[in-house]
């Protein structure tokens, strides 16, 4: 058989074989009766397709670069004057600077680190939620929770000299003070948007974010249970 003929037939045979194999695949309905996916895979795919979560989680660990949008800088100091003029004063001083960027709000606490570097985690978790993953790196702890309906809850605890970021697009921002703790609240405008709360307790920063099924009050309750 001539080379040219063989090459042409060979090429066509490869293509036809591939196409026929593909065409022989049963319909999606039939395939769904024959095959199934594990819960583990379904969860992985949900995470893969959810970019909001990736952005928020990547921001907690990645270095952050400044944006050029207009910024609102709010500085709150406690006992600042005393520190400046009385250096031997040992009262804890907490400076919180909120820099409002174009899309993200970055929290940088310049408070003193806690005297005991314990990893504090919530004692209260809403009914139906269970821990599905935990990571610890450079003093930062991240815990993921999920309920039986697949709704996710993300908890991050980090040293006070770290920065935590939260998406501030399509959210309403407010601050609440409860039992002497300031809670920075980012409430999603739509029902299916994320709600997030950031606070600082005893020299550690905490960020809790969840799909809109969990109201802000519940997020604050979780943070209040951190021990």
């Amino acid at each position, binding site marked *: 058989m001539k080379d040219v003929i*063989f090459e042409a037939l060979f090429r066509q045979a490869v293509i036809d074989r591939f196409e026929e194999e593909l065409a022989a695949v049963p319909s999606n309905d039939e395939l769904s009766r024959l095959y199934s996916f594990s819960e583990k895979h379904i969860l992985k795919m949900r995470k893969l397709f959810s970019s909001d979560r*990736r952005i928020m989680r990547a921001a907690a660990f990645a270095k952050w670069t400044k944006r050029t949008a207009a910024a609102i800088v709010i500085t709150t100091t406690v006992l600042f004057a005393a520190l400046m003029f009385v250096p031997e004063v040992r009262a804890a001083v907490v400076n919180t600077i909120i820099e409002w960027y174009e899309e993200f709000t970055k929290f940088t606490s310049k408070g003193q680190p806690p005297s005991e570097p314990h990893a504090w985690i919530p004692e209260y978790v809403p009914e139906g939620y269970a821990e599905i993953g935990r990571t610890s790196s450079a003093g930062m702890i991240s815990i993921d929770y999920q309920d039986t309906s697949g709704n996710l809850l993300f908890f991050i605890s980090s040293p006070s000299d770290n920065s935590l970021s939260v998406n501030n697009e399509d959210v309403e921002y407010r601050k609440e003070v409860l039992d002497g703790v300031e809670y920075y609240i980012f409430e999603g405008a739509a029902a299916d948007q994320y709600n997030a709360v950031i606070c600082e307790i005893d020299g550690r920063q905490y960020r809790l974010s969840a799909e809109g099924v969990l109201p802000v009050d519940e997020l604050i309750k979780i943070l209040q249970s951190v021990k």
Partner: protein
Amino acid sequence: MLQFYLASLETEEERRQMTDIYNEYKYILLRYALKITGNQDMAEDAVHNTFMAVINHKEKYLALPCRDFRRVAVVIVRNKCIDLLRAEGKYTDLPYEDLENMVEPTETSVEETVIVNDYYAGIRKHLDSLDLMSRQILDMKYVLGMSYKEIGEELGITAKHVDTRIMRAKAKVRKSLQSDLNE
């Protein structure tokens, strides 16, 4: 364990599109992956890795027409299966020449009837007897039109290796065909 993805789905439209594509192709890809790996966990990982690859090159893949995307997705999932099998140690530490002895064809028989003295049917028959790696390389070359360099990059081998595999596959089929004709 936290996972960092190189690219993200940045708009609601992209997320919806990816979800639709996943729902449309997940069972097809799982079927292919199961045939190659024979293992549900590994097959699911291959499907997951396939969609990761699609997201990482979303500009290229999401713009493809359905029929072309289907072909590409099948090739990608087979590549991912090969990667996973390698990681399991089934392919490591072996020279590439020995790999064809490791992986048996996944199809057990040819469906159509082979007509004696029909070259085309004979080639088709003997294509099925090629090992998985060779068939994958042939599909990437002739079905997707990829260059030797591109195929090599996808499979982690050199372009020269790709060339060698193709030459050997053709030689094997031709030799088998000649044997049929001589009978």
